[in-house]
C-alpha cells in the first residue's frame, strides 16, 4: 500500500515535467517579442497582446500536466 502511494507521487511529479518544454517555449516567445519591439517600437501594444495570447495558449500543455498530477494525487490517494 505504501509503495503504491509512493509510485503515485512519482507519477505526479513526472506529469508536472510537461511544464519544462512550456517554459522553454514561453521564454523563446518572450525573447522574440523583445526583438520585435526593438525593431518596431511603435507596434508595442499589438506585440504585447499577441505575446500574452500566445503564452497563454502555450501554457495549456503545462496545465494538462498539472491537471494529471492533481488527478493522480487526489483520485488515487
Amino acid at each position, binding site marked *: 500500500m505504501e509503495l503504491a502511494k509512493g509510485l503515485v507521487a512519482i507519477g505526479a511529479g513526472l506529469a508536472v515535467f510537461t511544464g519544462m518544454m512550456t517554459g522553454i517555449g514561453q521564454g523563446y516567445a518572450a525573447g522574440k517579442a523583445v526583438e520585435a519591439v526593438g525593431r518596431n517600437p511603435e507596434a508595442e501594444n499589438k506585440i504585447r497582446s499577441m505575446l*500574452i*495570447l500566445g503564452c*497563454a*495558449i502555450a*501554457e*495549456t500543455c503545462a*496545465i*494538462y500536466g*498539472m*491537471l494529471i498530477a*492533481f488527478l493522480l494525487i487526489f483520485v488515487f490517494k
Partner: protein
Amino acid sequence: MIYFLSVPKVTLQVEVFSIMIVVGLIFGFMVYANRQLTQSDPLAKPKGVVLLCTIYVNFISKLTTDNMGAKAAKTYSPYIGVLALFMVLSNISGLFGLAQPTANYSVTLTLALITFVLVQSTVYRSVGLKQFFHRFIEPFPPFIIMNFFGTIAPLVSMSLRLFGNITSGSVIMMLFYTFTGYISGMIPVLGKFDFIGVLTGPFLHAYFDLFAGLIQTYIFIMLTTIFIGNELPQEE
C-alpha cells in the same frame, strides 16, 4: 453536493447556485443599464454606466470585426459579449467566496460545446451539406481519422484549458493556505492566526483569480471568434 428536498437520487452541485447568482447579477445589470441607456441623451457626453457600456460594446465589436468581418460580427457579437461577461464574473467569483462555476468541467464543456456547434453550423451554412461531409475525406479517404480528431480537438482543448487553469488556481491557493497555516503554527503566541497567509495571499489571488481569469476569458472569446471567422466564406 447538496441533496435536493425529498426527490430521490437528484443531486444539485454547488456550482448551480453560483451560476444562478452570476446570471442574476448579469440580468439585473442589464435591466439597469438598459434603463440608463434609454434615458440618456445621445448627444451629450456619456458618463457612468452609459460610458462603461459604450466602452465594452466598442471593445467587443472591434474584436469581432477584426476576426470575422463586419457582416458576421453583427450576428455573433451579442453572444460573444454575453459570454465574456459571464466568464469574467464566473472566473473572479472565487474572490467573493462563491464556488467558481468554471471550476466545474460540465460548465466549461458546455461553453466549448456551444462554440463547437457554432463553428460546425457556420461550416454547414457556408459550404453546404455535401461539402460538409466531403471535408472529412479530404485529401483522400484514410484521412477521415485525422480530420475527425482535428474537428473534435478544439472542443477538448478549449474546455480543458479553462477548467485546468481555474481548478489549478483554486487548488494551489488551498495548498498555499495549508502551508502558511503550518508555518505560522510554529510561532508560539500568534500561531492560531494564519497571518503569513493573510500578508502574502492577496498577491497570489491577484494572479490566480484576476489575471488568469481575465486572460482565459480573452483567449476563449478570441479563439471562438477566430474559429468562426476561419470558416466564413470570404467576403470581398
